[in-house]
């Protein structure tokens, strides 16, 4: 659940500013966008798409500060590779090159760093991208948290592919590629020492091949928009699309897959899976007539095996995301107000 909401107009940064929800959006709106504004940035997609020498180049950057550094199903290294690849893939781009910047804390284990680097190398090789440049800085003990990683990526957007969160139209369908909440719960379970019968694994994975299948399966223009619901979860990603496209989105609760153990952990911790982070899932807004074909194509890929249509785009109350519950009633799915915190009762 979204818990007590914060005071706004803060004069200090609070953790919620990094949650990917409403406070993050406010920080962008109030601090960065007015100063950096330009047509590419103002599109507010997960990646910038710029034309260079006749090619459309996708360009994105992401920083990784996850704790614990090693978690079931991945580590900060593989996550840093997958996260940036996915930001490129959500623009329809074929990812090509990555940079890797490391901020290391004095005293950090070289062996752990070697494991993280090996994991990055493996993830990059598996995804067919190369890490072609990088940087290393060391900060004093106590001024970092072991290791922070920044990755920047570039890729090429194929001819005819134009995806943007502002392109959803009434009548379009919403597709989700698989069960939600795995990454956030894997991290939280490890952090809090919660143990389940079977370990919950992060879903961290590169999604560009899945995206390629989707684009091939659909006629040009049928895929309007892709988003990977990372921080802030499915709810924040859908709210962003609804706002940017000035449409409403309605989803069906019973169509949204959540693994039983993830649901159990959410029940225990008082969290709503719709707000929990994913690192290997995508949401797609697609033309209604192409939706079934796209879902069928996604299901051929292991990362889209549970793909399903979970809702549709409408034109009443623009900017609002609602969900039809299993009981047939309708409720709002709001953007995360701050950090999702466990409730006390």
């Amino acid at each position, binding site marked *: 659940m979204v818990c007590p909401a914060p005071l706004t107009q803060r004069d200090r940064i609070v953790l919620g500013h990094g949650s990917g929800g409403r406070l993050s959006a406010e920080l962008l709106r109030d601090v960065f966008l007015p100063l950096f504004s330009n047509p590419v940035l103002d599109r507010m997609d997960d990646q910038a798409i710029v034309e260079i020498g006749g090619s459309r180049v996708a360009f994105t950057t992401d920083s990784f500060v996850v704790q614990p550094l090693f978690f079931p199903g991945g580590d900060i290294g593989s996550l840093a590779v997958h996260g940036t690849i996915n930001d490129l893939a959500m623009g329809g781009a074929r990812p090509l090159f990555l940079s890797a910047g490391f901020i290391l804390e004095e005293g950090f284990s070289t062996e752990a760093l070697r494991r993280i680097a090996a994991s990055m190398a493996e993830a990059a090789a598996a995804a067919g991208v190369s890490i072609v440049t990088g940087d290393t800085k060391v900060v004093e003990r106590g001024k970092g948290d072991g290791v922070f990683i920044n990755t920047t990526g570039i890729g090429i957007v194929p001819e005819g592919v134009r995806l943007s969160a502002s392109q959803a139209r009434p009548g379009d369908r919403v597709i989700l590629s698989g069960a939600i909440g795995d990454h956030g719960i894997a991290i939280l379970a490890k952090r809090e020492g919660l143990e389940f019968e079977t370990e919950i694994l992060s879903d961290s994975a590169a999604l560009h091949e899945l995206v390629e299948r989707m684009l091939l399966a659909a006629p040009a223009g049928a895929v309007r928009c892709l988003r990977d619901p990372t921080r802030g979860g499915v709810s924040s990603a859908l709210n962003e699309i609804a706002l940017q496209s000035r449409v409403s989105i309605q989803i069906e609760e019973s169509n949204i897959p959540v693994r039983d153990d993830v649901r159990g952990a959410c029940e225990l911790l008082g969290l709503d899976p719709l707000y929990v982070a994913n690192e290997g899932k995508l949401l797609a807004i697609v033309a209604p007539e192409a939706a079934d074909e796209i879902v069928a194509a996604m299901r051929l890929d292991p990362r889209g095996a549970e793909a399903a249509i979970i809702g549709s785009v409408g034109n009443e109350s623009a900017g609002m995301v609602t969900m039809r519950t299993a009981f047939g009633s309708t409720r709002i799915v709001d953007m995360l107000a701050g950090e999702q915190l466990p409730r006390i*009762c």
Partner: protein
Amino acid sequence: MKYVDEYRDPKIALAVAGEIRRKVTRPWVLMEVCGGQTHTLMRYGIDELLPPDIEMVHGPGCPVCVTPLEMVDRAIRIASLPGVIFTSYGDMLRVPGSESDLFQAKAQGADVRVVYSPMDALKIARANPNRKVVFFGVGFETTAPANGMAVWRARCEGLTNFSMLVSHVLVPPAMRLILSSPANRVQGFIAPGHVCTVMGYREYEDLVAEFHVPMVVGGFEPLDLLESISMLVSQLEEGHAEVENQYARSVNSEGNLPAQNILREVFEVSDRQWRGIGPIAGSGYRLRDEYADFDAERVFDVGESHAAEPKECISALVLQGLKKPVDCPAFGKRCTPMTPLGAPMVSAEGACAAYYQYRRHATAIA
């Protein structure tokens, strides 16, 4: 998922809703006392399944909501003292005091940590003998035993660097206040299942005897609520009033006796201020004198503070079931979860926040 899905079965829910519809012959106003129940009603849209004759009003049972502004201010002041590690359940961190919240205090350098149990605060105290570790003990009878246990353990272990800022409140005195009000509209109560798991339901039998209103001790899942409503409607339509136990898988009449023992050992009943309602006599717990060394209000001298609630806020009326959140002119405009004017908008389990989070569309369209 076992123990969850069977209480959320839409087919059974619709069947119970149909049963309620067949039984009702005239309007009834019912109150679910606990914020967790309010949350379920809104989240699953249970109230939309009910016949129009059944009006649900929402009770004061959200501990975060009713924690007074002054207590949050006191918490922030203690947290900001040098050498203090301030620990709390997560959802108290964002609750605004009169000027700031614990998140802000943390951003300004206070060592504020989220814990999942007061026992985790004890662990922190053992690991940091040179720091003073304070736990924010908030909640109803539900969370009080674990908090009491932490204080008891701290004393047994001879820990000298652990204390608790106690802001515990009790449900029956608040229900008595609602029932005694000349303006009261509530004709039947869903009593709080988790509170009764600890305390049993003898106290509620006393209330029924005194005020002759039906009460059903109810759970928190959609079917729990529908079944509780159905049981209340039967009592009302048949004209009798007693305590029934819908939540029998968790509650018995005596409650959890070891938990009650620890409560008696560590706490004594005291008057408490309720945010949005005001002072209620005998409506809370404070630490007994034997445990004064563990009472953060006595360990730290943070002085008195008086903070006024915004005048526009109608939360006193909302928390007593006299008004609905949407009756407030500030609702969703000047008062939102990001900028709450009053208690029920503060926590997700508050009635105003639940309406805002799940039902804004209905009011926006209307």
